[in-house]
């Protein structure tokens, strides 16, 4: 049977390799929140097999399953057959957009990024009372969530960089637009060009990102290849901070949530923990950690398209925080901070921070 869609041409063998063992079901955050087998990776692979066998059509009826995935890659990590479900779904979504079947939230996001500089269609960008677009050795690239949803955390991260006397500049940044690739569209070339021009104009040798997804996009997408070609290093703030001595410590019990974009997608598990051990030796691990960390539920556009389920996924993660008895939950991603903070119940007395934000608070208290 001739392949009708690109996902078949690229991933037919992988989809058929799914042995329906259900290991993915145990770790899928969407399944964990909904208990609907059609929404876990195995369910999605079964649907795609039916599409390849021409038993069902790829159409709007499949949107809820195929577009409801945080692309956390927990299924891939645990799949004995090595089925790379997130990559398969990204291609399926492109095929669906091509035939006119797309979740309206994602269609909207693509339209928003044609007219606006950020995914929220906000007009006023927080400037953090700092100079922008000047010559400096480092650019600090905030990312949409850090600019428009978690600006208080970003302010504290910038204060920390100031305390550490890092010579950085902010730029008039626009969305890296990497998320479009997750939800059926192509990265926006105009936005990428704008970011690269503004980064290169500073003469910086490195970009420090507050957002792990932006770091992934700059490092991996061909539209941003010029940065590396011109010798610009891309670092997430957790990588940048690992060699600093902060000179402060807390006795509080802390735990660490691995963001999927930093952990499973980039393999960065140790640097954030090394930094935390320096300032908070009483670090405890949640029952799911590192490669097996539960997703906070915000990724893959799910926070925007399926907010109730997204919050439900975060609540499952927060139950694990409670079980540790930690007073502080640290992470390294503004999307995770945002979703986990929104989901946290008042009776849950621990606080949620980005690590850099927490370090800054400790240093401020010491003064």
């Amino acid at each position, binding site marked *: 049977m001739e392949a009708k869609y690109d996902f078949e041409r690229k991933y037919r063998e992988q989809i058929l390799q799914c042995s329906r063992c259900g290991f993915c079901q145990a770790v899928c955050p969407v399944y964990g929140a909904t208990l609907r087998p059609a929404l876990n990776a195995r369910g999605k692979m079964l649907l795609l097999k039916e599409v390849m066998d021409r038993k069902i059509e790829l159409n709007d009826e499949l949107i809820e399953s195929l577009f409801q995935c945080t692309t956390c890659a927990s299924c891939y990590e645990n799949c004995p057959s090595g089925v790379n479900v997130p990559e398969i779904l990204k291609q399926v979504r492109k095929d669906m957009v091509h035939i006119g079947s797309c979740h309206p939230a994602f269609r909207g996001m693509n339209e928003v990024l044609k007219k606006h500089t950020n*995914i*929220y269609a906000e007009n006023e960008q927080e400037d953090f009372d700092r100079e922008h677009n000047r010559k400096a050795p480092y650019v600090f690239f905030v990312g949409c969530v850090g600019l428009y949803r978690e600006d208080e955390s970003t302010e504290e991260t910038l204060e920390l960089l100031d305390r550490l006397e890092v010579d950085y500049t902010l730029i008039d940044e626009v969305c890296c637009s990497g998320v479009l690739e997750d939800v059926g569209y192509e990265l926006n070339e105009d936005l990428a060009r704008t970011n690269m021009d503004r980064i290169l104009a500073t003469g910086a040798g490195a970009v420090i990102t507050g957002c792990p997804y932006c770091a992934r996009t700059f490092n991996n997408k061909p539209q941003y290849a010029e940065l590396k070609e011109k010798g610009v290093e891309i670092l997430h703030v957790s990588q940048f901070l690992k060699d600093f001595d902060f000179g402060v410590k807390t006795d509080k019990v802390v735990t660490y949530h691995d963001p999927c974009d930093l952990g499973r997608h980039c393999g960065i598990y140790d640097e954030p923990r090394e930094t935390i051990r320096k300032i908070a030796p009483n670090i405890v691990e949640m029952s799911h950690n590192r490669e097996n960390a539960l997703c906070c539920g915000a990724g893959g556009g799910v*926070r925007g*398209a399926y907010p*109730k389920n997204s919050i439900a996924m975060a609540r499952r993660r927060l139950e694990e925080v409670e079980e540790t008895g930690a007073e502080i939950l640290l992470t390294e991603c503004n999307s995770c901070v945002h979703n986990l903070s929104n989901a946290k*119940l*008042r009776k849950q007395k621990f606080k949620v921070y980005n690590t850099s934000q927490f370090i800054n608070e400790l240093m401020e208290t010491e003064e």
Partner: protein
Amino acid sequence: MEIEGYNMPDELYYEENHFWVRREGELLVMGMDDFAQKMAGEIVFIQLPDEGKKLKKGKKFAKAESGKWLGKVFAPVDAELVAVNEELETRPDLINNDCYGKGWMYKIRPSDMAEVEELIHGPEAVEKWVLADIEKYAEE
């Protein structure tokens, strides 16, 4: 009173960012009005600060969020936060379903109850304000 499809009860006072206020003894109850909840769509998060927080008239003291919209909640008068609707933690949709009843958000103790008279109130003033905002948001 219904204004172009928005239910805006006559007896309430309104803060200009579309939060309603109602007297309840020495306290004020507040929530999001019908115009705001319809503009926002499905509410997914309401920040519920700790009781005792001091509120300054016109200053942001909490956040509200739907799928892709973030709203700021402003203090209608100088006050102290004395109670929050904890049901909104798990049922933020109460604001969409019953914004003037079960979807109430906060109870505050005003420093000066007379300040409430400075808020938008009375059918004529409310209609003029809502019609202007309908026009404003239609342009955006």
